[in-house]
């Protein structure tokens, strides 16, 4: 299978700090790839290199190749069109202080879509895609800030979907949510991977085991182990991986 992202020899420095060390990973399409590891191991930093959100931070120096469908995202693409193809969902649900409709329509509007009919269609599809349509269809004009945390997070997923990406990056998308909302998002991921490629950072080992196809274990900026999730959780190759997933540290 042709990989979606092909990352090789990626090094990232925050000033003096060497945050990612020679990271090489292939992320396959229509799979959920989980990135696990203790805090500060570089998994979120790695995630942000995939849609160049690191560009917004100062003092970041990146070296190495990040290819999306064979094109280097740092050398052959601009950050704006890259982020339209690689959507992102953040740790804290962060809807704009606008109506539910305006939140979802924001991405397509940025791309110049003005037709009301077209926007209505995109918004509905995105909300259905994020499994929140039935809960909000009667209140599309109401403020998004009135939704519960779990609903807000699914709205943020809908907002990302509406921009028409083929990859979704999720940075601990359920860590601020209650168990029921969490399981809804997890179900959603399993559903969404039919159409999208999902890369998810998670602190929750069970979550990685439940929903991901492949797992990468990060430690101190290095990828210690990257393999099939079932295999990693049943027979980890590296001692450090085993210690981490059995809860001996982290």
């Amino acid at each position, binding site marked *: 299978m042709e990989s979606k992202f092909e990352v090789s020899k990626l090094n990232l420095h925050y000033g003096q700090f060497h945050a990612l060390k020679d990271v090489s990973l292939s992320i396959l399409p229509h799979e959920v790839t989980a990135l696990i590891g203790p805090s500060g191991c570089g998994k979120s930093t790695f995630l942000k290199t995939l*849609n160049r*959100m690191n560009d*917004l931070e100062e003092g970041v120096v990146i070296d190495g190749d990040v290819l999306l469908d064979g094109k280097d995202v740092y050398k052959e693409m601009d950050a*704006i*069109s*890259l*982020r*339209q193809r690689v*959507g*992102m969902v*953040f740790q*804290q649900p*962060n*809807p*704009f*202080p*606008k109506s539910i409709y305006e939140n979802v329509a*924001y*991405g397509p509007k*940025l*791309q110049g879509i003005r037709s009301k009919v077209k926007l209505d269609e995109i918004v509905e599809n995105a909300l259905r895609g994020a499994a929140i349509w039935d809960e909000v269809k009667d209140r599309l004009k*109401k*403020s998004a*800030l*009135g939704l519960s945390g779990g609903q807000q997070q699914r709205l*943020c997923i809908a*907002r*990302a979907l509406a*921009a028409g990406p083929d990859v979704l990056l999720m940075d601990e998308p359920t860590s601020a949510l209650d168990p029921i909302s969490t399981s809804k998002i997890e179900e959603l991921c399993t559903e969404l991977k039919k159409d999208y490629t999902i890369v998810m950072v998670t602190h929750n080992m069970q979550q990685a085991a439940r929903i991901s196809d492949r797992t990468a274990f990060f430690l101190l900026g290095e990828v210690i182990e990257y393999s099939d999730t079932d295999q990693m959780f049943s027979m980890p190759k590296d001692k450090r991986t085993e210690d981490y997933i059995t809860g001996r540290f982290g």
Partner: protein
Amino acid sequence: MKEKSLFWKEHFWHGLISCCGLFVIVLTLAIGAFLVYKGSGTFTTYGHSIFEFLFSSDWSPVDSSKGGGSVGAAIFIVGSVSTCGLALLIATPFSLAAAIFMSEISPKLGTRFFRPAVELFVGIPSVIYGWVGLTTLVPAIRDLFDLNVGYSVLAAGIVLAIMIFPTITSVVTDAIKSVPNDYRKAAYGLGATRWQVIYQIVMPAAKPGVFTGIIMGLARAFGEALAVAMVIGRMRAFPTSILSPTTNLTAAIASDMGGSMDGGEYNTALWTMALLLFLISLLFIFIIHRIVGKGGVEKNESK
């Protein structure tokens, strides 16, 4: 023993701080009451109508307690409104641009050089603004537009604009800075450019603060007396254009209050102008509270 002394201190400071707080409230109420007492004489003692005071331009109050003159303050009111309106028109775009520059475009430069410079502006005494305006702006306007005198609404508007620029800028800067970074990240993550993030996400989210800043600037402009009096020309006539001299409420009060007989019709009419200024600033504060409150309510309502 020890516990008792702790309690004593607790009560002492509690009492002292409460007294200070109450004093401020009492003082404000007392000033308001005093202005109402002094200013209402125009309508009660001298029997003029509020309509005459606000809309007539016939200003010839008698400087004694006999009364019988006329107290139309429309020229002063129009002078105040036009100079302040002009100042706002000039200052707001610059202030918004400066605030966006300081908080979004170049925060480093902003906090290190720009912010202190803007804050320095606030501290400059108004007589200096007036004097500089008088010696540079007034002749410049005269020469530029080929006028007999450069004293004008325009000169006053520009001086006021320079004076309220820092006020608006710093309030708006704070408002922009308080917009959660999450909004920016979300917009960037959807493929927005920096400009799109600023004007589609950050500025709408900062809107209550932006209005508060503008109204605070307006309030400062309305209350400014000295600098305006120096460049407006103090001519009791409606301005025919922004290049013509006129006068305003604060200039009239400042220049005439000393020479008028206490309790006379003239003096009382000036007090009524002061009362009007007080009411206008109360109105502005009320509007600010409405705006700020509304921003909060919008969020709460939807919860």
